[in-house]
């Protein structure tokens, strides 16, 4: 781990880049160099960046699928239970299980549950809300939501070594390298 760092525990090393192209190239190289626990930060979604740091598949679609199915099934089950079992009302001699009338509420609740699970699932999988995160300790990182691009190698990476990782990152020609205090 960080045996000769400045003071206190270290979260990782951060490199700042000027453009999306440089960040993607740097992320590729870092990942290829064998670093596993890395992350890249950008002010807008960049195609191929997640793949560059070795993140290929996310589970949001699965969460939405499950949410949507639960919503649809529970809506239909509720209507069936109400209209057939607990509160049957004879409306003009129509069957109690008048399924075409139940389609709309089933559809709406499928969308509602699917949509909510998409938003909540995305936030939960991202670990948000997160009131504190070490990357914000680097003052330059404020530009990550404007026009600068960052790459972080976490100190928890097995290959991490304060001196060697720093020299590796400086080989990628970043604007600056900063140690991220934990």
């Amino acid at each position: 781990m960080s045996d000769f760092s400045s003071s206190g525990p270290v979260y990782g090393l951060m490199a700042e880049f000027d453009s999306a192209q440089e960040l993607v190239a740097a992320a590729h190289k870092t990942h290829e160099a064998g670093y596993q626990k890395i992350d890249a930060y950008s002010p807008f979604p960049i195609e191929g960046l997640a793949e560059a740091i070795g993140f290929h598949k996310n589970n949001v679609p699965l969460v939405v699928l499950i949410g949507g199915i639960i919503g649809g099934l529970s809506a239909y089950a509720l209507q069936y239970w109400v209209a057939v079992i607990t509160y049957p009302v004879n409306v003009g001699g129509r069957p109690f299980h008048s399924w075409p009338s139940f389609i709309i509420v089933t559809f709406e609740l499928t969308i509602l549950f699917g949509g909510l699970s998409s938003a909540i699932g995305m936030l939960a999988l991202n670990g948000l809300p997160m009131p504190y995160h070490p990357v914000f300790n680097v003052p330059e990182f404020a530009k990550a939501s404007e026009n600068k691009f960052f790459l972080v190698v976490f100190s928890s990476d097995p290959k991490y070594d304060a001196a060697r990782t720093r020299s590796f990152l400086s080989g990628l020609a970043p604007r600056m390298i900063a140690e991220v205090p934990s």
Partner: protein
Amino acid sequence: MATNTQIPVADRRVPVIAPGHTFSTITEKISNIVLSRPVSLGWIFGFLIVFSMMNVLMMALGYLFIKGTGIWGINIPIGWGFAIVNFVWWIGIGHAGTLISAILCLLRQTWRNSINRFAEAMTLFAVACAGIFPLAHTGRPWLAYWLFPYPNTMRYWPNFRSPLVWDVFAVSTYFTISLVFWFVGLIPDLATLRDRTENVWVQRIYGLLAMGWRGSARHWHRYETAYLLLAGLATPLVLSVHTVVSFDFAVGIVPGWHTTIFPPYFVAGAIYSGFAMVLCLAIPIRAIYGLQDFITMRHLENAAKVMLATGLIVAYGYGMEAFMGWYSGSPFDSFLLWNRLHGPYRLSYMALLGCNILIPQVLWLKKFRVSTGWLWIISFVVLVGMWLERFIIVVVSLSRDFLNSSFGMYYPTKWDWMTFAGTIGMFLTAMWLFVRILPMISIFELRTLLPESHVHEATEVKQ
């Protein structure tokens, strides 16, 4: 959203974003409206006006809660009146926001990126205004929760075969999903505001709302998936909402309501009026806040074209109603047509035809599509026309149905007008606050419109 394939092709059209902008200038220009632009006297003056209008709504509703719906002009045979007219009108206006944010997102129409945020805000505020009317119309709005299925001591349950119950589910789902979609879209921009402000309290509020967003590549990956799925879910939802609203009518047997053309015709009308509202808002806002670089003539022209197209679908709907009046051979249906043209409400029907069909045809000419003044006037005319359409459908159909003995007239009272004007005030108050406290254009989506955001293309150029 795969971004590298959708750069606007270099063509002779006006670009969706003016040349010369960088990530910083976009960020600065939009966030400064919220963070550092001083509050002008004009804003305060305008706010006082719209806020007073909103208070008119509070008075009208307050008196309604004391007295009951008898203060309105409704009575048998016209039991729906302004409440339902305004409900359908407002819900329809909301539809353009979802169309812009969801359907145009799926269709990869990048020009939507500069107008989706405030169009979505418009949707939320319009649906909030719409929601007031059916609640107030129940007569005892404090019992409105009876509409939802929940275990209760009365041991009763809603009738799921009723379009009015479908409506509760459709509209409340629509509001919730619109809110979620809007908020998810806001998260990265709230982080930008958090990082840019110097005021510690402002930073805390935006920071709380941004929930610690840091733009991690993993987060963006999930974010884009979630956003795309939300768009995919919101697209059938928006089409379903006005369909369900039209079922409130179409499932009834009143002539003028009981037709199968209602769902598509209502949806087209909704988008028609919604785009008119988008233009009515976008034209002054871009002028006041100097956003011509981001909301270019291309946006206004595209919105005008959507209006023209949906307006023609609406015209087809009117034509088909008239045709069915004759072709059905039903005396009640042909009387409906006669009554619209010659009955006591003929003037509103003529005005409807003028506002919704005749006048918007000038949009075929480019001259009108590229003139902000004309566009604003035509949009306003369309908004009036679409309100009249709902008035014709609700009031004129109910006023004369099957039996002469049950014919009647509807005269809105001052409370009807106050409630209507009040919701316009509430809508504008919300817009007034929105443009000053949240970024009205999606900053991060605008960044993706710049060529520097496309990694692959840029590397190809280098080689």
